[in-house]
């Protein structure tokens, strides 16, 4: 079982042509601006970064392995904990993958509510990015502002699912339950004021000379490098590549919505900042369309052997009780096959590769998360730049270590 583990990182040979005065600097794993437990090993020449190795794995919890011993429906709460800043996007991607394996159609209303809440999740994710990114640069105020708005989103999530962060609200075959009556009014009130709030952040940052100097021209990632290094999402669009899964390979009913895909040709941290700020405004448009056109009807597909019955039915109907018992104790069998379902999460392309062998437990669940690929591009973006720019670049690629280590 033993393998050759290769050269330990701190004794890595110096880069070609380097002089021996290069210093190896360890950054993290608890540096506050690394957004979790990321460790970077930097080889520096004075203050110039020569090489950079991201060391990940400090949050590795073996979620993929755990999934193999759970029933399909029991995996949903596990997915919340992967990208913990965008829980509903995780739920959506996993549920879509299993629904594709099952060939299950879900009702229109559930589709629309899923889009509505996933876009709210995107805004949530971008708000945290903006607050922490600005804080890394030194603009502490923005953090307080964005967390004020984020609080309202978390309250909406709590009203919907009973949980602020670990929602598990999307289930295989629809939603966990009908959302509360005043939910749509509440979201409407929230998004009515949000554009002004985004202007407020923009006023604080866009014209701020310190913020501009720290981001403009820093962390250059050419479109060719971005595609070659498998970078996705806002980081890719900030490098001028016009690709968004929501528009180009629609899933979960996104083809019904009109929105623009913001791109920036700047290829630097500033480009990524512009793109994410615009994306929040576009998400508001999608939410508005979803609120305006919200169809009625059930929120669960008509598949009693897969979806838990309503509580009331379970206590009054024998058949519903049997289905409930069967699903909870034995799960449900999923036809053999494999699917790779991708969605555009707040950070980029999220993908679930689910392999079924025909039993009630997934044979293999592989999670493709955007942060893992974005980290590969970190060295390209930081090479030849000052040490302090590394912090700005890490902020601009918007990583969550939970999704990288899984």
């Amino acid at each position, binding site marked *: 079982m033993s393998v050759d583990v*290769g*050269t330990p*990182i701190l004794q890595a040979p110096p880069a070609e042509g380097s002089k021996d005065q290069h210093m190896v600097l360890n950054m993290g794993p608890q540096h506050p601006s690394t957004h979790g437990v990321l460790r970077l090993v930097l080889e520096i020449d004075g203050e110039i970064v020569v090489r950079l190795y991201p060391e990940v794995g400090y949050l590795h919890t073996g979620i993929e392995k755990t999934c*193999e011993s759970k029933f399909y429906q029991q995996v949903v709460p596990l997915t919340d904990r992967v990208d913990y800043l965008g829980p509903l996007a995780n739920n959506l991607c996993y549920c879509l993958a299993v629904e594709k394996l099952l060939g*299950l159609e879900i009702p229109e209303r559930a589709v629309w509510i899923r889009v509505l809440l996933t876009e709210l999740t995107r805004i949530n994710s971008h708000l945290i990015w903006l607050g922490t990114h600005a804080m890394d640069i030194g603009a502490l105020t923005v953090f307080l502002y964005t967390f004020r708005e984020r609080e309202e989103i978390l309250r909406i999530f709590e009203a919907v699912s009973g949980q602020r962060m670990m929602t598990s609200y999307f289930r295989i075959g629809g939603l966990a339950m009908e959302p509360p009556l005043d939910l749509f009014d509440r979201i409407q009130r929230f998004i009515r004021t949000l554009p002004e709030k985004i202007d407020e952040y923009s006023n604080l940052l866009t014209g701020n000379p310190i913020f501009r100097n720290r981001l403009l021209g820093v962390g250059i990632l050419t479109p060719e490098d971005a595609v070659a290094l*498998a*970078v996705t999402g806002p980081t890719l669009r900030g490098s001028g590549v016009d690709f968004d899964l929501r528009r180009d390979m629609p899933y979960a009913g996104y083809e019904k919505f009109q929105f623009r895909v913001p791109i920036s040709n700047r290829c630097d941290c500033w480009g990524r900042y512009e793109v994410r700020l615009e994306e929040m405004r576009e998400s508001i448009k999608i939410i508005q369309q979803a609120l305006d056109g919200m169809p009625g009807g059930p929120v669960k597909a008509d598949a009693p052997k897969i979806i838990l019955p309503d509580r009331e039915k379970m206590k009054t109907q024998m058949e519903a009780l049997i289905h409930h018992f069967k699903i909870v104790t034995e799960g449900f069998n999923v036809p053999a096959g494999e699917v790779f379902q991708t969605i555009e999460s707040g950070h980029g392309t999220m993908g679930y*590769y689910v392999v079924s062998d025909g039993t009630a437990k997934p044979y293999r669940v592989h999670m493709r998360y955007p942060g*893992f690929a974005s980290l590969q591009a970190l060295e390209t973006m930081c090479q030849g730049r000052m040490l302090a720019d590394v912090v700005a670049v890490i902020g601009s690629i918007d990583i969550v270590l939970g999704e990288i280590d899984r």
Partner: protein
Amino acid sequence: MAEATQETIAGKQAVLERMSDHAAVKALVAWNADAIIDALFDRGELSLTVPSENIVEAVQAIKEAGYNAFEDMTAVDWLPSDPRFQLTYHILSHAMKQRVRIKAWVSEADPAVESITSVFPGANFYEREVFDLFGIRFEGHPNLRRIMMPEEWVGHPLRKDYPVEGYR
């Protein structure tokens, strides 16, 4: 969800005949039609299986056909079958808005395959992850070290014969 209801085309012969205008199928047929081991079009997703010793050439051919963006790679442990490990590569075309899945099988006795980092540098971390969690070696990889587990860890956690709660 509409694509989930699409029909299934199983087998190499059927896919090569009925999907001959698909860019990925065309590219692999032009590269080496005999080398394709198996093909399957299921649930709107195309999978092509190639021999593991030709994986780099196959991926190169796919890349030249316009599948420019490497998205994902992983492995599946099909214990106790032989060959044991299935490698899965997902490659996307930004222009065609299409994805293709390339599969290759690796035996347990010599779990090694050539690294595709020369074609897609973005596969770097993904191959390290498979090396770490499945113990499959990638020849020619620039920095093949464990990525998730500690360097001195014994065993490969995502193998099916590795207990969920670990060795005690």
